[in-house]
């Protein structure tokens, strides 16, 4: 989560820039506020094990972000955290299963599907890549790295799409030609997870 908070800090301006032509130019600021609260909350409460860490982080994101990405990412982390339970560690299969539960909860909450030009266009390809890599015997770090690459490709593929959800959907055709900011932030988060696991955290 700290790697995610670092990535959000580093890239907040770029996220906000992506959000200015088709959104309300606050995606980076909102996520920075949320992840600052997450960093602080994890330091104060020191939950142990991946499940409790995700649960607390998700709750803080829902509370502090202030934009649609709060309930969406918050739901993803909370559902994934619940799925992982109180175990002190999780293997690749458990991580992938928990993430699938989380991402599907996001899709349900937002009523969106792939191709709507949302964060799901990065998250679903990442999930598929993660599951396939684990299936073919790669370790979790390598599988998450593959997920990060798939998320980046998915985010890039949102450029020609027309937005069907969120504020950008009001722009109709004018939303075409811009990368979706939510998909871009999803790339950051998946990549941060991959880096953290790769570094053995």
């Amino acid at each position: 989560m700290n790697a995610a908070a670092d990535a959000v800090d580093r890239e907040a301006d770029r996220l906000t820039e992506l959000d200015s032509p088709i959104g309300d130019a606050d995606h980076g600021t909102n996520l920075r506020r949320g992840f600052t609260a997450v960093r602080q909350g994890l330091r104060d409460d020191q939950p142990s094990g991946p499940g409790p860490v995700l649960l607390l982080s998700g709750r803080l994101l829902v509370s502090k972000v202030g934009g649609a990405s709060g309930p969406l990412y918050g739901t993803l982390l909370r559902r994934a955290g619940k799925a992982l339970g109180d175990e002190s560690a999780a293997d690749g299969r458990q991580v992938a299963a928990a993430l699938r539960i989380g991402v599907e909860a996001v899709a349900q909450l937002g009523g969106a599907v792939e191709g709507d030009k949302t964060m799901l266009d990065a998250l679903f390809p990442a999930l598929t890549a993660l599951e396939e890599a684990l299936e073919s015997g790669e370790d979790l770090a390598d599988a998450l790295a593959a997920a990060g690459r798939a998320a980046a490709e998915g985010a890039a593929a949102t450029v020609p799409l027309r937005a069907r959800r969120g504020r950008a959907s009001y722009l109709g055709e004018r939303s075409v030609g811009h990368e979706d900011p939510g998909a871009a932030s999803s790339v950051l988060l998946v990549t941060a997870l991959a880096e953290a696991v790769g570094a053995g955290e």
Partner: protein
Amino acid sequence: MSEQKEPRVGLVLVSHSSQVAAAVAQMVSGLVGTGGSVPVAAAGGAPDGGLGTDADAIREAALSVDEGAGVLLLADLGSAVLTVRALLAEDELPKDSELLDAPFVEGAVAAVVSASAGADRAAVAAAARDAYEYRKV
């Protein structure tokens, strides 16, 4: 013996703007007249006071209007709707809370008129939903 007050359905107005939420709350009370007897709370704006949604404020507002007859939440756009849905999904709102599918201003008026007449939660929600049926042209 003091008279037992009948519990009313509570209404929470969730807007991206604190002014919009507060103004609509004030407007419904003014239009309804007896609206003062229906608990209405505004939860507008982001945690930093700017435009957006504050989940903690929504939770507090819902608790403040809960008299035991249910709480209805009316939200304007995007994050306001998603945050209420997320709070409901995680059981973080009072028992018998429900997100209204209704236009913000018209739905609020319909809900409070109906609640002030003593309607139950389902009837108040239906009155708010029916506000979509009122065509302007």
